[in-house]
């Protein structure tokens, strides 16, 4: 079991761990003596923390810079103790340690009391979904081992956790790590404390229940076809994050809504198996070869994940630059990665705001923290802040609420090259395409396939289907370009069709009155017509005045299983456009044809 030890800087985390290792005789022979001798040689007082703070900088400065892992064992089970740094500068290291843990020990200095990172680490444990926590009130020897002092601290910290809605700690334990009291051994000094020692509390932690009984989730990690050493299997690879699946099960992929059936479960140097459950990194072959990509979630049809572009989250920001509205970031959630923006800030929790007035805030933090008045900054989340925010992805993404599925309900945000934040999803937010997505799901799950598989069509035509939408004002040249692309592609032997929106209006839409209230229905019918053509394997090049840039998200929601390329003509300035290419309308037809061909190759619709 992985246990993380957290708490404010200098409250004695490494000492707790070092002492625990020493008292349980886990240290290699001679290690303790070697560290004692080294301390004598350098004239430093011996500290148990030196057993863990292995880096020379750490020993020189007397602080833990990065998490260390110590392996340790009781008759009950194997432990990896993750010693996390308490200094604010190294918060990201603390998180890296805590994110690997199943349970936590939070250390509070009896003399200094509850400090900024005691609180912040409390938030973070809650944010990371760590529900099993014990609190060690350390350095009890410095407060004469007084029970009333201990109880006062316990009350204060319990109230704080209650306020933020975190899980109740299992136990508060008064300890003196330096004297080894109430860690592995009880000691003879604090007889008023009748509860378990730290070691007993660790052994009382429970292993998380297996997630095999939850709905089946497998985020697609890769599609492999090695085609070497006589192997021609096409394998859908990934880890079963929850539930189980059997050979012969019908499976669906979200967000594409594609369906197939498990043909076999594959592994190297393992006995063949007909079912597999949560925890296994595996690979499948499917009976119907379908085109799916990394980032989709495989599930059973009866319990698919949610799909949306908007969701509420609890997250922490670690970036040097604040998390701001109006900028593009990348979100990584299970195996999916796509552009994301900060849509709305609902709440920022500032752990340092609750400090007593006489304690001054470190400068670096004051600079990034919200305004001193406590007013909410509506546009940015600062470094080390915990916040409730709504995120919006550019394309729909499949996920679960964290409470329903941990691995598919948590994410990180990447700014440039760096992971700058992370958090958990607390719920989907309504977006305008919800109804269309529901319609598409119902349609696709019940779709009756013909005798020719999509892969066979793709092989015959030499490309996969895609919708290329020309959008822009009337008279900007959409029609001219769409025709040119159709003609050029046809001559190259592609299966292509120009879909002019006017033709849909004349027939399929003839019962609709031309007014704004019917816009949704116009979009729906246009997309459904396109859907049939795409199902036939065609590259569809559309041009229409009735359906513009504002409708692209709706069209995409109705065509989750087909790539959509948007070519915008006479584009308005500004970076917010969802289009894949922006033209002035003055380009030559051949240039536009080449540009579209390039986009298709980039998306692997045609061979490059």
């Amino acid at each position, binding site marked *: 079991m992985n246990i993380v030890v957290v708490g404010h800087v200098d409250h004695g985390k490494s000492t707790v761990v070092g002492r625990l290792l020493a008292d349980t005789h886990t240290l290699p022979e001679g290690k303790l003596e070697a560290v004692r001798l080294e301390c004598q040689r350098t004239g430093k007082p011996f500290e148990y923390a030196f057993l863990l703070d292995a880096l020379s900088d750490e020993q020189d400065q007397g602080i833990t810079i990065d998490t*260390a*892992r110590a392996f340790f064992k009781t008759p009950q089970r194997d432990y990896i103790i993750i010693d996390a740094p308490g200094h604010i500068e190294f918060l990201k290291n603390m998180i890296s340690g805590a994110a690997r843990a199943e349970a936590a020990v939070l250390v509070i200095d009896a003399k200094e009391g509850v400090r900024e990172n005691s609180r912040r680490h409390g938030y973070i444990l809650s944010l990371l979904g760590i529900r099993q926590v014990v609190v060690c009130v350390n350095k009890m020897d410095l407060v004469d081992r007084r029970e009333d002092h201990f109880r006062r601290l316990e009350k204060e910290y319990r109230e704080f956790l209650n306020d933020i809605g975190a899980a109740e700690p299992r136990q508060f334990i008064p300890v003196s790590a330096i004297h080894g009291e109430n860690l592995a051994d009880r000691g003879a000094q604090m007889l008023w404390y009748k509860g378990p020692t730290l070691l007993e509390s660790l052994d009382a932690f429970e292993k998380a229940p297996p997630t095999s009984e939850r709905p089946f989730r497998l985020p697609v990690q890769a599609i492999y076809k090695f085609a070497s050493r006589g192997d021609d299997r096409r394998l859908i690879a990934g880890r079963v994050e929850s539930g189980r699946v059997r050979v012969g099960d019908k499976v669906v992929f979200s967000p594409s809504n594609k369906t197939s059936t498990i043909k076999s479960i594959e592994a190297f140097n393992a006995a063949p198996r007909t079912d597999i459950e949560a925890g296994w990194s595996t690979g499948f072959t499917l009976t119907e070869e379908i085109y799916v990509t990394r980032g989709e979630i495989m599930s059973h049809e009866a319990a698919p994940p949610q799909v949306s572009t908007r969701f509420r989250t609890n997250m922490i920001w670690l970036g040097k630059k604040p998390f701001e509205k109006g900028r593009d970031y990348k979100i990584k959630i299970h195996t999916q990665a796509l552009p994301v923006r900060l849509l709305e800030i609902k709440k920022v929790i500032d752990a340092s705001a609750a400090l007593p007035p006489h304690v001054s805030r470190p400068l670096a933090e004051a600079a990034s923290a919200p305004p001193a008045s406590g007013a909410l900054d509506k546009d940015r989340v600062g470094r080390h802040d915990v916040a409730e925010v709504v995120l919006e992805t550019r394309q729909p993404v499949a996920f679960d609420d964290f409470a329903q599925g941990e691995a598919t309900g948590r994410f990180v945000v990447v700014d440039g090259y760096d992971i700058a934040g992370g958090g958990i999803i607390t719920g989907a937010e309504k977006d305008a395409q919800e109804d269309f997505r529901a319609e598409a799901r119902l349609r696709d799950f019940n779709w009756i396939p013909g005798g020719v598989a999509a892969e066979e069509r793709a092989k015959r035509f030499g490309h996969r289907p895609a919708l290329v939408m020309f959008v822009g004002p009337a008279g900007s040249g959409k029609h001219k370009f769409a025709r040119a692309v159709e003609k050029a592609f046809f001559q190259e032997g592609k299966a292509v069709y120009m879909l002019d929106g006017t033709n849909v209006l004349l027939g399929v839409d003839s019962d609709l009155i031309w007014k704004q209230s019917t816009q949704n229905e116009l979009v729906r019918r246009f997309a459904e017509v396109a859907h049939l053509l795409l199902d036939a394997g065609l590259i569809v090049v559309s041009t229409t005045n009735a359906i513009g840039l504002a409708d692209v998200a709706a069209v995409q929601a109705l065509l989750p299983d087909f790539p959509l390329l948007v070519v915008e003509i006479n584009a308005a300035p500004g970076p917010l456009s969802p289009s894949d290419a922006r033209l002035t309308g003055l380009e030559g037809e051949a240039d536009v044809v080449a540009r579209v061909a390039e986009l298709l190759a980039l998306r692997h619709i045609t061979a490059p």
Partner: protein
Amino acid sequence: MNTLDQLEQQSVYIFREAFRHFERLCMLWSVGKDSTVLLWLARKAFFGHVPFPLIHIDTSYKLPEMIAYRDRLAKEYGLTMIVGQNTEVLATGRTFPSTEKLPDGHPDKVSRVQCCGWLKRDALTHTLNGTWPRRRLNLKTGAYEPDADRGPYHGVIVGARADEEGSRSKERYFSPRDKNNAWDVGEQPPEFWNQFKTDFAPETHVRVHPLLDWTELRVWEYIKRESIPTVSLYYDRGNGTRYRSLGCAPCQAPIASTAKTVDDVIAELKSGKLRNIAERSGRLQDGKHGLEELRREGYM
């Protein structure tokens, strides 16, 4: 799932993430037990295939059995096997073994740590970034030939374990190195759950550590479970000694042990005399902070 299953499955996940994110990916293979388990895990992850080159840094001081074993497995598994070496230092004799007899304080005398730095760290750095020539095993002829590919590798899979030594316990699964191959311990990226650092600036590279959570005992238990072939140097062959950790011949001491089989080694680790002795204690270059210094500058 038992503990070995859990360790194996997490390693497989890390392998697949690495393969996905790094077009120029390679794996270091010292032919020791850890990196051989690593090789086995790669075959687990990729259904029997190893879809990236393996790099071996040949200091010329490895025991001949290690080299024979390396080439045998490379042919059997159909590996892309690349070897790199600091030929210049070897040609001029500026190594610890060839200057060992010189008196202390002699200007030409090379320390163990310096020797590691040149033969391992520098050879590795320049083999990875392509500035020194590489040799590639021709699987048909069994000969090593100059490698036409001189491109740098951006993702490097290595078999470091957190339990080996203090500074390794601070590693991430995905750990960036700057363009000089240096490790900035104080500025490591955060690692939330299984979301690793997979975006990197040009000229930097990332070390990937699928074995980080394994221990020496688990490595041996896995070797037994999967029947993974290992070099015979790990076992007592009649003289009452065996190697616990394999490096260069002049800088490693065998330990007194009569463990003749994988089972014996496991029994020895579990309950025998080795329980409280550090694994690398036979590796003479480590010393105080010796390994940390080497690692910051790019050592494995």
